[in-house]
């Protein structure tokens, strides 16, 4: 990636790319915010089941949440290894992050399939539409992150990642942690709180 960098002059003393990444993450907050808002607005609006309480599995998703949190830990270790110029550790921790991220995606895929088999589809009701769209785009963000991690691991394995290029790992880390904190919000709202939303008790009109 970046070649040997002489520190360039910047007005604030901050790196251009780091500033770019933070502004981009601020922008991505609006993206997920709009998707979450759609979910919250349509909470309780589905005309037919399945409703969240019928299929949301909080224990299993709690496990996948742990996995993602641990991947953030691994990511932080990858950055520390970069500063320490420890090539094997860099590659190891990057791969660990990617593996944990992939396990999370695995959980998501299994969950999507289970829900589909239990009758929750994109077009079936609003819960399906909003749930799959929101978690689907989050999953897409995670997947892009995994691809980035694998690419960086390959580059690191060639010995081209070190303290001079720590910024590249740091930027990847910022993106990865962002994806993690978005999941914290999704987990709390969609699973812990709204996961117990039920449909109506009786047929309308009697």
């Amino acid at each position: 990636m970046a070649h040997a960098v002489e520190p360039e002059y910047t007005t604030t003393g901050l790196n251009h790319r780091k500033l770019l990444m933070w502004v981009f993450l601020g922008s991505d907050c609006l993206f997920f915010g709009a998707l979450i808002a759609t979910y919250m607005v349509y909470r309780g609006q589905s005309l037919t089941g399945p409703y969240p309480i019928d299929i949301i599995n909080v224990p299993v998703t709690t496990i996948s949440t742990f996995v993602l949190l641990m991947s953030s830990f691994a990511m932080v270790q990858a950055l520390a290894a970069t500063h320490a110029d420890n090539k094997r550790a860099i590659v190891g921790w990057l791969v660990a992050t990617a593996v944990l991220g992939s396990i999370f995606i695995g959980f998501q895929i299994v969950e999507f399939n289970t829900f589909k088999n239990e009758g929750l589809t994109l077009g079936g009701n609003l819960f399906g539409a909003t749930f799959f769209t929101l978690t689907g785009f989050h999953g897409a963000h995670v997947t892009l992150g995994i691809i980035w991690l694998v690419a960086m691991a390959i580059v690191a394995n060639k010995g081209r990642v070190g303290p001079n290029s720590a910024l590249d790992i740091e930027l990847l880390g910022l993106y990865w942690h962002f994806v993690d904190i978005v999941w914290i919000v999704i987990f709390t709202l969609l699973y812990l709180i709204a996961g117990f939303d039920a449909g109506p008790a009786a047929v309308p009109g009697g």
Partner: protein
Amino acid sequence: MAHEIEHTTNHPSFKQYVLIAIILFAITIVEFLLIWGRAGIVDYLGASKIPLLVGLSTVKFAIVIMYYMHLKFDHRLFGTVFIGGLALAFLVGIALLGLFVGFGGGQRTYAEDRAIPYTEHEEHEAAETTTPATGETETPAATGPLAISISAVGETLAFDTDSITADSGSEVTITFNNPSANNQHNLVIVQEGMKDAVAADGTAAGPANNWVPPGDARVIANTILLDPETSGEVTFTAPASGTYQFVCTFPGHNFTMFGNFIVN
């Protein structure tokens, strides 16, 4: 002037990172216990579980941002741009929610009035197939069968006749031709004066039901929804003598696409 600051600012040590990971882990466990039925806590909490869960998650959120994303040790500007976006997303989201859920907008009652309870998947499928939405066929009555041909007019929202007639008890077959290149139409026989009310309920019933409310007593018979440049027919027994109406219940068409069905 300001050259890039060398990355010598504080980093938490390995042990501190592990501690942070354990804290995140622990908070998640607490959140889980708060809602897990078998732990029994949730029964005491009631609605207060929501602020508790939100609070705990906010703490996790803040810890990841401050330590993993290093914002605590970094230049303020990064935090400003990110928190700016985050705060905006939060405020706009709350405003949207408020506009939908509160302020007397009446947005929620539609679903509340019409939502059906969830049944297991297979039962649901079985229930659906027993309600046909297409026209009904009945055994021919005493008097001879009658064939009526009716058509929409080009691209306009109108039938080519405003009156059709039949004898009570006779078998009537209406062939409806839709010559339009753009519009879908149907033909629905309804009780007198009911065309607009049935059309309104038809809109609610949706295209899957051919824009006709299923099992509605005001509907004598109806064709399915016809695509552009197709024809369809419906056969039924003419009801007791009197005046009825025929109408197209595609949303919005009922205002101009209707006529009288006179049964002698």
